[in-house]
């Protein structure tokens, strides 16, 4: 079965610092890739997704992610984080009818 690895469990940054969260999946083939975010007390919501085309995808709130097929990676980036980005971030992979989520990365941004 597919597995999704998020290497950073908890990240603490100061405002304006740059962010990169790692995500790797285990099996190749045709996949669709997602990053979801869960703000404190809120539902999970989609940040961005990749299913074809340009491997650099842009999402909401200034986030972007790059799909590198040869590395089975889909890392999330933001050049300058804000306090309001404090949240839990989940990488997810869809393959066929199945969806696989990573364990999540908790991001704390210090004002």
């Amino acid at each position, binding site marked *: 079965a597919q597995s999704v690895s998020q290497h950073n469990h908890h990240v603490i940054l100061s405002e304006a610092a740059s962010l990169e969260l790692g995500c790797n999946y285990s099996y190749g083939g045709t996949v669709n890739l997602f990053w979801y975010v869960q703000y404190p007390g809120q539902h999970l*919501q*989609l940040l961005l997704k990749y299913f074809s085309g340009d491997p650099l995808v842009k999402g909401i709130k200034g986030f972007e992610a790059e799909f590198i097929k040869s590395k089975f990676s889909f890392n999330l980036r933001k050049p300058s984080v804000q306090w309001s980005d404090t949240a839990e971030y*989940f990488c997810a992979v869809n393959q066929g*009818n199945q*969806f696989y*989520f990573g*364990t999540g990365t908790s991001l704390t941004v210090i004002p």
Partner: protein
Amino acid sequence: IAGITQAPTSQILAAGRRMTLRCTQDMRHNAMYWYRQDLGLGLRLIHYSNTAGTTGKGEVPDGYSVSRANTDDFPLTLASAVPSQTSVYFCASSNGLAGDNEQFFGPGTRLTVL
């Protein structure tokens, strides 16, 4: 528009009891999903449904059953709860099962099995 509602918000249940978690969406989405979220394990898919009348197994289906009698409702049943089913359960829906469709999540149900 409420989106996705789940009930109950939380529940404490004795082992061996039967429990049904409810999920209703008002977006007329074809596909619906049930996940459980456990510390250190992320979200894992339990069951899914592509359309009313059809269901499929996810990564961790054992001990759970679902039904999809209509488009809006997708209840999850634990026939005989066990402590390992203590978790937070999220229902989600999307416009189709294809992976390029965004999933919309409900607020979750926190279930404790003693």
